[in-house]
């Protein structure tokens, strides 16, 4: 149980980082919606879990939060990726690609 959520957590962090990197500053709602869109509704998450990821990333200094005004003139907290966050994203993305490649090859292994 703990192991599974750990993986999910890390994955979600990576997704949030990538989203902010690609889309520029966004509020929590925007991030959640964007992730759902990209995953083409495969990933039905509790949108609230995004916030756990956000607070973690803020503490690590990979993203930064600021209050701003949204498109429909409502005050909202905007998150944006920092330089350190970009570096981290690059490293984690590379890791992810390598590992998913290994797992993919493993799963395609034919049994004799």
């Amino acid at each position, binding site marked *: 149980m703990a192991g599974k959520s750990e993986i999910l957590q890390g994955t979600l962090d990576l997704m949030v980082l990538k989203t902010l990197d690609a889309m520029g500053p966004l*509020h*929590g*709602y925007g991030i959640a919606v964007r992730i759902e869109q990209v995953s083409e509704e495969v990933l039905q998450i509790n*949108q*609230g879990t995004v916030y*756990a990821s956000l*607070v973690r990333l803020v*503490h690590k*200094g990979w993203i930064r939060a600021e209050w701003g005004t949204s498109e429909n003139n*409502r005050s909202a907290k905007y998150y944006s990726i920092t330089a350190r966050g970009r570096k981290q994203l690059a490293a984690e993305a590379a890791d992810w690609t390598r590992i998913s490649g290994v797992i993919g090859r493993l799963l395609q292994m034919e049994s004799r």
Partner: protein
Amino acid sequence: MLDFLRTAVSRARSALHLDRVDDDFRQELASHLKALTEENIRRGMQPDEALRQAHVRLGSMAQLREENRAWQGFPFLDTLAQDLRYSWRMLRKSPGFHVTAIATLALGIGANAVVFAALNAIVLRPLNVARPESLYSIHRTGDNAANQSYPDYLDLRDRNRSFEDLAAYNFQLVGLDAGAGAARAWGVAASGNYFDILGIQPRLGRFFHAADEHGPNSAPYIVLSYGYWHVHFRDDPNVVGRIVQLNKHPFTVIGVAPPEFRGVLLIFNPDFYVPMVNQDLTEGGNALNDRGNRDAVFLTLGHLKAGVTPAQAAADVNAVWAAIVKTYPDNHGPSTFALARPGLYGEFLGRPMRTFLSALMSLAVLILVAACANLGSLFAARATDRAREMALRLALGAGRLRIARQVFTEALLISCAGGAAGLWGAVLLLRSLRAWQPFPQWPLNVPLTPDGTVYVVALLLALASGFLFGAVPVAQILRTYPGDVIKSGARSTAGPRASLRDLLLVGQIAICAVLVTSSLVAVRGLARSLRGGFGFQPQNAIVVNTLLDMAGYRSDQVPAVQKRMLESIETIPGVSAVALVDRLPLNGDEGEDRIFRDDASDLRPANAATTADVIKISPDYLRTAGTVLRTGRSFTPHDDRTAPRVAVVNQEFARQMFGSPVDSVGRYFKLRDGIHIQVVGVAEDGKYGNLTEDPKPAMFLPILQSPASDTWLVVRSQRDASRLADAIRGKLKELDPGLPSFIQTWDNAMGLPLFPARMATATLGVLGLIGAMLSVTGIFGMAAYSISHRLKELGIRMALGAQRSQVLKASLSRPFRLLAFGSVAGLGLGILASRVLAFLVYQATPRDPLVLAGSVLAMAFLGLLATWIPAQRALSFDPLVLLRED
């Protein structure tokens, strides 16, 4: 790592304004919810349904907020604060229990802190000089003495190839006149390179150096110690250049030593430092050129060259010494040398100090262990009482670790409070010990300043003991099964698990019995050493140290002055006898000489028949001191320079030289100068150097035939000591107002030889007392607990007609059995430890029947004392009340 730190800083920052962070988050969630709802409405939902769906998509807001909060600040600290608050409430609820626990620990940790501070200051901490690790002194193997003649020191210094340089110093007692009249002062006479080798920088002015020495009496310079400067010159910065009188010779003050420097002998606090080349001038002798005077140098020391081991250096010194002996066979016998640390005069003080302090340290640790066992069983008993509460908490889903952590927090809170109290007491005690000068005639004391190490050790001890006694109830909790406890009530756990507590109690009582036994052994040892066999009667006598050379008398004037002194003291009413002696037995002075048979013609050291203590006395000394003359006669005023040389010897001397005391009167022997001396009397044996020595040959010589200027007046009288002292002081003033003297009762002077026994008794007595207190509280806790748990059963028994004695037996037989087990084990351990104890205390063995009986009685008495109150409680309860309860 960096990430971890960054996260911690960020968390800490948010911890400072948690409320704002929470508000912020709530606002953020609210706007998220609003956005979701609007989106749902746009998709065509009814507003109610849209809001409900939005809540579902977002998740529980309360939980999200809780999670967010967990990410701010430090949840670990939160829990800790919670535990601390809970512990504090528990503490407030039963203050008596906790005050006892804290006091117990304070005693245990305080005792450890004091003993460790002493161990640290005396044994562990290196000397406060530059490069202490390579600083060694040269000691003879065998008696560990380090004294040398000055010419021998020069040869050792110049011929060895192992030391960078070799310094020498000697102690000097002088009359020092800084403008307010001459007063006794102790100083160090040092070779010119002394300060340079030690690497000390002056506080004021300068130190003397090797370049200041140009032969005997060429450097009349004096460096004051910080303490002397502080007291006698009130920190006057213009003291440099002033002239002071040292034994009536002018010396120029050139500097002041820094406050942390007190010479290299740890226990000796000198007033001043002067160049050794002036020793002859101030002491009126000719020590610097006399190769036979081995008292000219107290100690030689220096830094080993890089890469030279102490063993190599010792071999080198031995080779140099062999060459010296070959060149001067008349003055030297063969000796071998070893290297040691100068701080405690090598192994001479080093070994007994180490042994004594390590033995004390182990006893102190035993006390702490006993205290932990004591508290462990008390806490376990309380944990049993709280078993129902614990079980309920477990059943309601509290983690076992969480509960264990809570118990540890409580234990650590108590142990840290105890540690702080103990350390505070220790620091107070150390402060008074530091100021304590056990011997008024010497500046001896120990710089017992607690440093960081002591505080760290006390903290570690506190934490360790907290974990130790906290582990007992925790072990019990981790084995608790909530179902069992809730079904059957708290009492069921008292069955088999009590055995751990019993074991702890037995162990604790055993330790306490060891402590009680050792303190009794010490008391008995002290009683024995007080009972005497000194060879003199210190009661009703006053001793006065008069140093005529301090007053500037030349040696040919001394006999006349001494005669006047004796005559004038004799006229004081109430004085029954008065005499002079050059060294008070058992008072730290040494004086031995080689004795040759009368027919010996080759007087080389190797041919000596024996060595004997030499004591120079005026005619009336034996009567005044209360030394019994076994046969023959004592001296008369006619045994002077013109008469044949005579001696009174002790029985051991007579036995070794002549076979029997009776035959020896009238026989002759020779000293190393070849003079015949006739034995005219035989006196009883006594103790001369220390209380524990074996019977030793000694001889008394008439002071008129072998003059000595540094003497003690012994005055015997039944009069009140302080008035008599005033009268003596007055008479001496009349005789010579510039004569420094030091007056005390002989009983007081006996403080030195009795010091080890008294120290051992005091320290072991205190430890024994703590041990006794611990066993009382331990047994009391156990008895009170077992009775309170069986009150109901006891009530039923009484209601059914049981006799009071039966009830008592039922309730107290167990504590008593445990007490008996523990005491026997403790006595056994005490007997096993007898070698350690015999070392601490002169002539003491725990096999002594009185000690054994005393220990058994003491433990039984402590047991009675501890069970008395619980027993009274058991008997006083009304069975009806008891049965109605619960």
